[in-house]
């Protein structure tokens, strides 16, 4: 059934019938498996990947390195939770290497992002330092390349 997950990861707009045929399982079985994955939160959700730069004038995404002092009982989890509860936080990961947490946040303006870091993030107890890197251009996300459709020169040959 992992095949279903691979197919959904590629394109979650496929119908259950399509998924079932492509995975080579009966439709009812595919439907039940997907339901189970959803219930168990193996499948967290379904979202579109959007090139916002082509729609809005200004939109800002930043990657923030955060150093923290881990809490004694829950380690990094407790402090991570305090951070990711903010809606502004899009993604967050615990990292190996020179900093502890990587956070990706999106805002409408540079100011908005800077305010979040200064007013909210830095003041959380246990956060010892941050470094904000603004994303200048997105090239690729989840295997999808950010590039407008080039006009296609269609020439057909008979093969």
């Amino acid at each position, binding site marked *: 059934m992992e095949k279903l997950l691979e197919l959904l990861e590629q394109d979650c707009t496929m119908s259950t019938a399509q998924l079932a045929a*492509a995975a080579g399982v009966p439709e009812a079985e595919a439907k039940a498996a997907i339901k189970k994955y959803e219930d168990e939160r193996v499948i967290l959700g379904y979202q579109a990947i959007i090139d916002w730069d082509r729609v809005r004038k200004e939109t800002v995404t930043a990657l923030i390195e955060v150093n923290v002092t881990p809490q004694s009982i829950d380690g990094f989890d407790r402090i991570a939770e305090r951070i990711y509860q903010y809606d502004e936080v899009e993604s967050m990961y615990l990292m190996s290497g020179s900093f502890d947490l990587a956070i990706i946040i999106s805002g409408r303006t540079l100011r908005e992002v800077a305010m979040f870091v200064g007013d909210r993030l830095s003041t959380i107890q246990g956060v010892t330092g941050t470094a904000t890197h603004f994303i200048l251009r997105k090239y690729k996300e989840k295997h999808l390349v950010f590039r407008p459709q080039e006009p296609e020169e269609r020439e057909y040959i008979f093969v």
Partner: protein
Amino acid sequence: MNYDNILNEKIQGIKPSGIRKFFDILEEMTDAISLGIGEPDFVTPWHIRDAGIYSLERGHTKYTSNAGMLQLRREIAAYLNRRFDLQYDYNGQILVTVGGSEAIDLALRVLVNPGDEVIVPVPSFVCYGPLAEMAGGVPKYIELKAEDQFRLTPEQLRAAITDKTKVLVLPFPSNPTGGIMERRDLEAIAEVLRGTDIMVISDEIYAELTYGQRHVSLANLTDMYERTVVVNGFSKSHAMTGWRMGYVCAPKPIIAAMTKLHQFGIMSAPTTSQYAAVEAMRNGDGDIEHMREEYDRRRRYLVENLNRIGLSCFEPKGAFYVFPDIRSTGLTSEEFCERFLMEEKVAVIPGNAFGPGGEGFVRACYAASMKDIAESIARMDNFLANLRRKQGREG
């Protein structure tokens, strides 16, 4: 000038394909879907493209040896051994060609004497008959049957053989039917060929695209190696159609003759493409598996749904085509395709374009996105429903 008197008679006798008119219509259409072209929808894997680019950066812009770069021939020999258990000596048994098509052309030209008969099973890719004619041969067509899953049967072959038969073309896995020849089917063909001098051009360009079992080459069978010319290439297996990279393997005297012709007509296959092909052979097996798995998903979906909406379709086990039976609609293949294109804006190819045995069938290529395939099914369903309604009124 009257060019009819100037042009070679044989080339004048060869009719251009009627398919062009469909493509002309298609090119004018917006939001049309094409399942018409037999070409992978994948771009060549990046590491292979990169190897081509790197060869240019390094300044590898000259001719290679006529037979193709030594390292490429070595890699091809290793690949054929690894994947299909075929043994060919890179030194004298392998020629790198400009696509599989050049290899087919060369093979026919070095084997056929004027008046020799070339047996061509149809429906099949359109090049064999015309190339056989240009080589001075006489194509003899065997009509493969849907009830045989478009396999060549020993009875059909035996009936087609005369004392003029020189070559049998064996085009499996098949474009357009998706049919394959399993080992037992080949054994039966080999039995007919044993004791004759008939040569076989085995076009194995889709060898990597079989589903459920590995492709078997005729050259693997007892006594068949000496009479088999194996044609293969990178177009379908590695999504490299535009690079024009093919190769052909055969006993040394045949490759020597083909190389002679190749050096006059072509000189050497494109150098950049050969460097890319080396990378494809060395590190491309994973790409093959990945693409085959993708095609397989689409294949299963398409076959299941064509049958569901009422077009009977045998399960194709090779290549990337389905070949549904449209006789229940009462339309000819061409009528079907023309109306389907005009009414629903989906291009599929009439089966009769691939020879007489293809009438009553259409070819749809599933080397297309799942989205396009799903949409095509919906449109096909609609088309058939409308057709039945109209026919009901008329009837």
